[in-house]
């Protein structure tokens, strides 16, 4: 389970951003987690609470947004969803992906402050 490492990285990242903002208390942290990121959502939610203990984020909430897989299809010539997870085949024409466009995301997108 590497979700604890991921959670600790979220906490460090948010604390750094918070410092940049000046001050304030964080109520909610928004993250995006791709289906191909290899990170389990439940394990991350649990780990986040542990990672926040004793920090300025102690009472904050983590909102996890799933990101579905999207590929670049060389036949359709554009971004397409895939037919069936975890296969990287175009949902429309069945061709193999040229590359993954979405689904590997692991990012902090926003934080909400206590007003």
């Amino acid at each position, binding site marked *: *389970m590497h979700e604890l490492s*991921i959670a600790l*990285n979220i906490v460090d990242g948010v604390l750094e951003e918070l410092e940049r903002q000046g001050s304030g208390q964080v109520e909610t942290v928004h993250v995006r987690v791709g289906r191909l990121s290899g990170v389990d959502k439940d394990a991350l939610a649990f780990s986040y609470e542990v990672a926040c203990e004793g920090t300025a984020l102690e009472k904050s909430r983590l909102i996890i947004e799933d990101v579905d897989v999207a590929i670049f299809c060389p036949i359709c010539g554009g971004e397409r969803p895939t037919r069936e997870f975890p296969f990287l085949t175009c949902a429309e024409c069945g061709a193999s992906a040229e590359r993954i466009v979405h689904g590997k995301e692991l990012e902090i997108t926003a934080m909400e402050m206590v007003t």
Partner: protein
Amino acid sequence: MVEVRRNILKENDLRARHLRERFHAAGTRVISLVSGPGSGKTTLLERLLTDLRREYRVAALVGDLATENDARRLVRSGAPVKQITTGTVCHLDASMVEKSLADWNMQELQFLFIENVGNLVCPSSFDLGEELRLVLVSTTEGEDKPLKYPTIFNTADVAVVTKLDLAEATGFDFETLAKNISGVRPGMRILKVSSRTGEGIEELERFLVARQSDFKVPLFSKAERSGAPK
């Protein structure tokens, strides 16, 4: 609401990028091995170190939660080997690699192998600055491993099927495995070896010493190993 847009693994990615630049400047080709526990990473590495050492200056880092058993095995090859014991951590990260290289002169190394902790999930998120990542699947595992652990396959560059000498005994079906690999990672190159009999080893070694441009699979670049944005 304050917009942030920040990669969660930003720090690891930055360290990995620095490592990659350092390896490149030193002319060291860095190859990492990932697989589940017991797929034959150490046995294969023992063989590669022994063979490649005849012509190249090679070294290895080997990660495990505990024990120095793997390092002890690999040292028999005569190559410099360092064990990274991670304690409770289930993967290597760029800072562990950086730390363990502190007293090694990279200029002296032509090849550096990094054996990750045996785990098909966790190592996939962490870029180590390597040039090439090999994912090993043994013939004693199920052919559906790529479907169960797609992320490790699409963060690796090449798949190596190990324990070829046991394929018949286990009823291993190569075609099914190959189909599953290309399903989750179109275009991925697959090599087959037996570290015990030596079958396929020479081909793998030729492949590893070939020019970078020859073995790079252009489909999924290093930049895509971890999530966007940078």
